[in-house]
C-alpha cells in the first residue's frame, strides 16, 4: 500500500503511484499573520491524488491554522493554494468545500440535535438537486432526490458499521461513534481531499487501530487524499506516506516516516536541544 516517495518539481515529494496525476493539493508560500504574529509562514506542501499525508508538530505549531487556511476559515495573508490545480483564492469556505475539501474538527462539531442520518444528509446538501417548491409541495423531484440521498447516507454509514444508529440523535452517541460520524459527514460532501483534525484524540489503542484501518479503507474505496493532524505517533508513522513537521508556524522537516523519525530538527522540536557534552 505504501508508495515510494518521489520528488516533484515544486520541491515536495508525493507517492510514486500518483506521479502521473496532477497533485490534489499544492500550497505555495502560504502564510498568515494575526496582528504582527506570523502564525504560519512559508508553508509549502504538495499532496498526491491518493496520498495519506500527516501534519505533525508540537502544540501551538500552527497545524489547525493550516487547516483553517485550506478551508478558508482564514484568508491567507500570503501565498497560493491550488486544489487540483485550481487557485482557491477567490473562494469562500462553502465554495472550497464544494470544490473538494472536507474536514473534521479537533473538538467534535456535529449537529447535535439532528439525527445521525440527517447529519450525513446535511453533508450532501450541495449534491441534492431540488428547489424549495418541490420541497414544500413534495413534487417527484423531491422524492427522487431524498430517496437517493437516503440510500447514499446508508451506504456511507454501513462502511463504518453505523447503519443501525441512523435514527439516533447525534448528540447522544458515544464519543467514538461521534468521531466516526464526523468522518462520514465529511465524506458525504464528496471530497477529493479529506482533512482530519486529530482523529484519534481520546481513543484507546484498539479504537485507534480500527481508525487506521478505516482511514486506509476510505482512501482505497473513494480514491481520495487524506491529510491528518495527529499527536499519536504510532498512527502517524503507520499510515502516513508523507509527513510534514511544523514548529512555530514553519515547516522544519518533510519526508517519509523513516526520514522524519531520524531527523535531528524534529527530535529537537519535540524533545528539546541535546546538551553539549
Amino acid at each position: 500500500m505504501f508508495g515510494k516517495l518521489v520528488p516533484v518539481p515544486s520541491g515536495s515529494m508525493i507517492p510514486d503511484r500518483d506521479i502521473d496525476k496532477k497533485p490534489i493539493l499544492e500550497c505555495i508560500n502560504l502564510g498568515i499573520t494575526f496582528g504582527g504574529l506570523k502564525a504560519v509562514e512559508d508553508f509549502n506542501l504538495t499532496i498526491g491524488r491518493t496520498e495519506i499525508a500527516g501534519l505533525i508538530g508540537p502544540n501551538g505549531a500552527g497545524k489547525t491554522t493550516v487547516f483553517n487556511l485550506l478551508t478558508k476559515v482564514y484568508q491567507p495573508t500570503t501565498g497560493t493554494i491550488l486544489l487540483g490545480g485550481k487557485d482557491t483564492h477567490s473562494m469562500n469556505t462553502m465554495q472550497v468545500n464544494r470544490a473538494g475539501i472536507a474536514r473534521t474538527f479537533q473538538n467534535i462539531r456535529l449537529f447535535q440535535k439532528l439525527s445521525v442520518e440527517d447529519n450525513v444528509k446535511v453533508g450532501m446538501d450541495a449534491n441534492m438537486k431540488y428547489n424549495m417548491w418541490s420541497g414544500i409541495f413534495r413534487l417527484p423531484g423531491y422524492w427522487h432526490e431524498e430517496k437517493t440521498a437516503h440510500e447514499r447516507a446508508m451506504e456511507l454509514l454501513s462502511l463504518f458499521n453505523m447503519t443501525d444508529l441512523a435514527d439516533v440523535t447525534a448528540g447522544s452517541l458515544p464519543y467514538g461513534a461521534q468521531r466516526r460520524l464526523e468522518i462520514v459527514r465529511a465524506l458525504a460532501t464528496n471530497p477529493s481531499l479529506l482533512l482530519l483534525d486529530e482523529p484519534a484524540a481520546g481513543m484507546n489503542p484498539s479504537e485507534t487501530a480500527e481508525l487506521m484501518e478505516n482511514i486506509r479503507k476510505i482512501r482505497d474505496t473513494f480514491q481520495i487524499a487524506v491529510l491528518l493532524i495527529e499527536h499519536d505517533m504510532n498512527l502517524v508513522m503507520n499510515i502516513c506516506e508523507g509527513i510534514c513537521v511544523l514548529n512555530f508556524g514553519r515547516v522544519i522537516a518533510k519526508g517519509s516516516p523513516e526520514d522524519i523519525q531520524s531527523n535531528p530538527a524534529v527530535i529537537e522540536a519535540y524533545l528539546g536541544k541535546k546538551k553539549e557534552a
Partner: protein
Amino acid sequence: MTFLNFLISGISLGSIYAIIALGYTMVYGIAKMLNFAHGDVIMVGAYICFYAVSRFDLPPLAGVILAMLVCTVLGMVVERLAYKPLRQAPSLAVLITAIGVSYFLQNMALLLWSSNPKVFPGFFVSASGDTGVELFGGELKISYVTLFTILICIVIMLALTWFTGRTKMGKAMRACSEDKGAAQLMGINVDATISMTFAIGSGLAAIAGVLLCSAYPTLVPTTGSMPGIKAFTAAVFGGIGSIPGAFLGGLLLGIIEIFAKAYISTQLSDAVVFAVLIIVLLVKPAGLLGKQIREKV
C-alpha cells in the same frame, strides 16, 4: 357556553400570535437576532392586501398571495440591506438596526398610505351573507374568520414541521442554527439559508396580517407593532428558537389574553399577559419548550 366562546376566540387570537411568533423564532434560531421589524412586515402585508382588494378589485385570494409575495421580497431585502452587513457585529448593533428598520417601515407606510385608518374588507362571508355559524340554537357563534384562522394555523404548523424535518433546506436551517461555521464547512450556503428564513417568516407575516385585520378591521401604520410585541412575547414564552414553542406560546398567550379581558379586566389584560410571562420565565428561564443553553467555558 360563554366560556367556550371565549376559549374559541382565545385560540383564534392565539393562532395569529403563533403565526407571527414563528417569524421571530425562526429568525432568532438561525441568525441569533431579534427582528423587531417583523411586526411592521405584518402591517405592510395587510396594506398590500387591502389595496389589492379594495382599490384594484382583485379577488381576496389573489390579494393574499400578492401580499405574501411583497412581504417575502421585503423580508429578503431588509435582511440583505440592513442585517447582512452586520453579520459579524455585536448583537446590540443588530438589535438597534432592527428597531430602526421598524420605524422606517412605519414611517414609510405613513408617507405612502397616510395615517387615516383604513377599514379592512371582510373576506370571510358566505354567499348568503353570513359571517359565521351558530351552534346550540345561537348560544355559540363561531365566525368564519375564527375558523379559518385556526385552520390556517394548523396547516402552517404541519407544513413547517414537514419542511424543517424532511427537506434539505429544513435540515440546512437546523444545521445553521446549531453551528454556522461547521455548516459552511460542509458546503451549506449559510447566507442563502438565512435569506430563506427571512423569506418564509415574512411570507407568514403577510398571512398573519390579513387574518389579524380580518378579525380587527382597523388598519393604520402602527397596526403591526402591538401584535408584533405580543408575538415576540409568545415566542419567548414558548422558548425562542423552537418552532413548536412558538405555536404553544402563541396559543397560550391568546387564550390568556382573552380570558383576562373577559374575567378580570379589559384594561388590565395586557398586564396579566405580561405578568404570566414573567412568572413563566422565573420558573423556566428558557421558556416552556426552550432548552437551557450551556455556555462553553
